[in-house]
């Protein structure tokens, strides 16, 4: 069965620190990869996605993620976090070629201290 692992349950950073959240998946075929963010009291929203092409994808609010196929990874990065980035971040994987099964990781809670 397909699975998604997020390495950190809770990350605490000071403002301006750099961020990297790990995500690994188990499926070996073609995949579509997503990072979703859930700000306090708000619904899940898409941060960025990878379908094909350049493995370095850029999303909203200065976030980026790199797909490394050989490592089955899709880590999320931001060079300098802000207090407003405090949220829960979810990695998700969908098998490619028209598949529908969208599997989420357990999420990483990010707390940014002003």
């Amino acid at each position, binding site marked *: 069965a397909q699975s998604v692992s997020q390495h950190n349950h809770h990350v605490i950073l000071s403002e301006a620190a750099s961020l990297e959240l790990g995500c690994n998946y188990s499926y070996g075929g073609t995949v579509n990869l997503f990072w979703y963010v859930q700000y306090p009291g708000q619904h*899940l929203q898409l941060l960025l996605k990878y*379908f094909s092409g350049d493995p370095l994808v850029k999303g909203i609010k200065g976030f980026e993620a790199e797909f490394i196929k050989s490592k089955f990874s899709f880590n999320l990065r931001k060079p300098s976090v802000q207090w407003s980035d405090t949220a829960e971040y979810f990695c998700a994987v969908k098998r*490619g070629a028209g598949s*529908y099964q969208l599997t989420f990781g357990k999420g990483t809670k990010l707390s940014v201290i002003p």
Partner: protein
Amino acid sequence: GAGVSQSPSNKVTEKGKDVELRCDPISGHTALYWYRQSLGQGLEFLIYFQGNSAPDKSGLPSDRFSAERTGGSVSTLTIQRTQQEDSAVYLCASTLNQGDTEAFFGQGTRLTVV
């Protein structure tokens, strides 16, 4: 509407009662997912609808859970004889089609079984 709408936003019910949760997907979206979000558990897939195809019910945790989607639009998730472990946030998402598209989430229904 402009987004995925779920109702009610909060539901408190007594153990043993039945509950119905409603999801209005984005107009024109053919695919609809239900997920359950429990503290520290990420998003647990429950059921998937795609057009007029038979739904994928493989994620439903027990036969107390059922869902239907009428007319390819509105969906209702029903939980019979609720138990305390059913307490969670139930999320609905829709996608334009089965292929390489992102999922749009509703705000969720927070269910508390007392």
